[in-house]
């Protein structure tokens, strides 16, 4: 790091290119267009000029206007991503800095798909369910990545279909990548309630203990979300589609709880002993204790027989009591994953020849938004959090180089499409700027071997499938 200084006497003269405001590091990319937008900022699709076969997603963080320096969300996401490395977790390829406004840009390898788009395609376009092999493989890989995170004491806190990416064509085709760590937390550190972040996340995947006002997160909140996502993969519909109560800070989400109670039955102290200690249950201003839904109807909703292992797994992920809820490690051991069809590496293409392969559309790209500016020619802003609305973006300007069946509505929601092919060659990213500004090598000397790791992913060292949360090792 600090030794790039030798280069810098020239740095003054580097600024005379055509677009004077363009940060130098940006020169190494061809920015194609915007592919996502959220409270944190924008995501762009780009190609590295020196290696055009490798698309990159660049996440640009908005600089907070409170005049208090670099966005804490950006800092948190970067610092966590710097420490983790797993096949089913997005990989940070580079960090760039725009010194003109002190904004940060994270470069990830690009993933063409995400569970939100895959589910939507099946529901709205092909009108058929996702095949069993794909559902199981997606779920297994999601759990595999999550088990790694939880073993490392990281809770994601914002798992939802749009944050679960799937790699498109290429060596890593059909590999799941968990993305968007802007809300992730290290959970042995004292955790702050969600409300203190001032960030709104979608409520459909929020665990009941959080809806009832629990102040502390455990990894069980992620498992609840996985359960919701599993059900959605099976039925193509969000499992608990509650009406969000807007307002701050963190209002009580009555409808969301009601939707859950309706399907899973009313929680009881017998099934969930610590229920009575949860603030919203205790105060019961909205008389939730009074509502009674006696019969649990989860199997009806997901159309599975109660004897089906898939149902058994799902119901254990949707256990009310977070302490009884299945952990990621336990889930990976579930019978469901040992039955045919077995989960595979490429979730999108079943290994058996003759199986029908679904061609998912590529991501819509809005070429009218420039990475530097915030000028959007199309002001139709995606809706903040819900998945309900497809904010119809009239005919995004689609790049000709990208084959897209037809322009698709840009869906509203926080979306970033990072991901990471492990062995992304950093040297090709080039070093922009005088003193290594921005082009911080993001790897810890493991680049070349990364591909081999794919083969041994099931016995990934350092994260046993059992014994989660991993026993904290003494440090020497």
């Amino acid at each position, binding site marked *: *790091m*600090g*030794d790039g*200084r030798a280069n*810098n*006497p020239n*740095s*003054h003269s*580097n*600024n005379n290119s055509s677009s004077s405001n363009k*940060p*130098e590091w940006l020169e190494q990319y061809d920015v194609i267009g915007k592919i996502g937008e959220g409270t944190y900022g924008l995501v762009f699709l780009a190609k590295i000029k020196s290696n055009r076969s490798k698309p990159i997603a660049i996440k640009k963080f908005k600089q907070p206007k*409170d*005049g*208090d*320096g*670099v966005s*804490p969300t950006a*800092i*948190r996401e*970067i*610092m*966590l991503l*710097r*420490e*983790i*490395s797993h096949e089913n977790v997005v990989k940070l390829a580079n*960090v760039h*800095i*725009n*010194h*003109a*406004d*002190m904004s940060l840009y994270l470069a990830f390898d690009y993933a063409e798909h995400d569970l939100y788009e895959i589910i939507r395609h099946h529901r709205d376009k092909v009108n058929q369910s996702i095949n069993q092999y794909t559902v199981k493989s997606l779920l297994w890989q999601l759990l595999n990545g999550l088990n790694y995170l939880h*073993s*490392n*004491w*990281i809770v994601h806190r914002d798992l939802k279909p749009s944050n679960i990416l799937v790699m498109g064509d290429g060596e890593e085709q059909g590999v799941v990548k968990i993305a968007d760590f802007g809300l992730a*937390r*290290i*959970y*042995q*550190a004292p955790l*702050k309630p969600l409300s203190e972040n001032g960030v709104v996340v979608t409520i459909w995947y929020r665990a009941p203990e959080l809806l009832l006002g629990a102040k502390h997160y455990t990894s069980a909140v992620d498992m609840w979300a996985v359960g919701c996502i599993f059900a959605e993969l099976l039925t193509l519909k969000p499992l608990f589609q509650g009406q969000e109560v807007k307002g701050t800070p963190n209002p009580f989400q009555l409808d969301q709880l009601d939707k859950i109670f309706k399907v899973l039955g009313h929680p009881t102290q017998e099934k969930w002993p610590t229920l009575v200690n949860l603030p919203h249950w205790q105060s019961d201003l909205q008389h939730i204790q009074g509502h009674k839904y006696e019969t649990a109807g989860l199997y009806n909703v997901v159309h599975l027989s109660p004897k089906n292992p898939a149902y058994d797994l799902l119901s254990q992920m949707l256990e009310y009591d977070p302490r009884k809820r299945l952990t990621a490690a336990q889930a990976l051991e579930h019978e469901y994953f040992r039955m045919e069809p077995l989960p595979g590496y490429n979730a999108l293409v079943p290994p058996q020849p003759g199986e029908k392969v679904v061609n998912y559309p590529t991501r819509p790209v809005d070429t009218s938004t420039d990475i530097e500016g915030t000028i959007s020619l199309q002001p139709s802003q995606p809706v903040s959090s819900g998945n309900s609305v497809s904010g119809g973006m009239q005919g995004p300007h689609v790049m000709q180089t990208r084959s897209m069946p037809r322009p698709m509505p840009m869906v509203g929601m926080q979306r970033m499409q990072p991901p990471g092919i492990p062995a992304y060659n950093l040297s090709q990213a080039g070093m922009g*700027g*005088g*003193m290594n*500004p*921005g082009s*911080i*090598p993001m790897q*810890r*000397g493991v680049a070349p071997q990364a591909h081999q790791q794919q083969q041994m992913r099931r016995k990934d060292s*350092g994260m046993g499938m059992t014994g989660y949360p*991993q026993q*904290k*090792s*003494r*440090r*020497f």
Partner: protein
Amino acid sequence: MADFTTSTHRAKWIFTPQDLKEKYKVANQRAKQALEKYGATRMEVDIDGSFSYAEPHNDNAEKHSRPKPLKTEEEKLLRAFYEFKIQDVCDAFKFPRKIQATALLYFKRFYLQWSVMEHHPKNIMLTCIYAACKAEENHVSAEELGKGIEQDHQMILDNEMLVLQSLGFDLIVYAPYRALEGFVNDVEEFYGERDEQSEMIKDLRESAKVEVDKMMRTEAPLLFPPGQLALTALRRSCGVHKFIDFERYLKSLLSRQHPAHPISEFNLSLNAIDTMINKLETPTSKDVKHIDRKLKSCLDPSSHEKSKKRKHRSKEGSNEMQ
């Protein structure tokens, strides 16, 4: 959080004593050369994010004799002074020990790459505290921090990206406090939980924490993993509170957890850390006064007679960054 064994802390930020010496020398030499070439050592961040030494001021630079650069030992003393200050400021704000340790490590890591002649340690000290608060989710606004110690908070913001960048965004650091908690709990179990002991264990823990506080200002955190730092603190604490036989505990610990690891090798590390704590110096502002004066003239040789103008100019500088 995450595992120390796979951390950036272990992979990138544990050095040998030779490494450190070399790094301090390189930074010092570079600043010296800049002083010869440009007449000043202060670095500025350009609009494109590159760094450059401040433009030489021709006006009366010729009339003055060249300022003398700091020697590496003087840099070290100055760093030690500001490291003590970090603890001071963190105490004043009643920040948890973890933040203090994080800020100290940021500061140490920063000056492995830069000379104090290039970036004034007072500014970097505050920026490191600010960044540590952000990383440890104990967010304090720059304004609040600046106010608390009567410093211009703009300077903190101006340096934030520089610090983050110099740290390579490796912001998760492992302080020995956590490991220490683990060992103390283990000791408690090892000796069986008896009521009359709980008070003693409490004393043991507290004095060990004070030992960690001290060692955080030595070079040890750049040389040894947090577990060894914590054990050294525990050993020192046991030396005071004699009721625990540390050697016996260590033997049992190693046989349980690292049967292949010879205790002698282990003791070498603990002894080395121990020596560093014994040699720890805490310079007073009187001790560093002349160094600070020297530093001022290196950073900006025209500063003596033009301190008012300098202030004015630094304001312009910050506008450029907008």
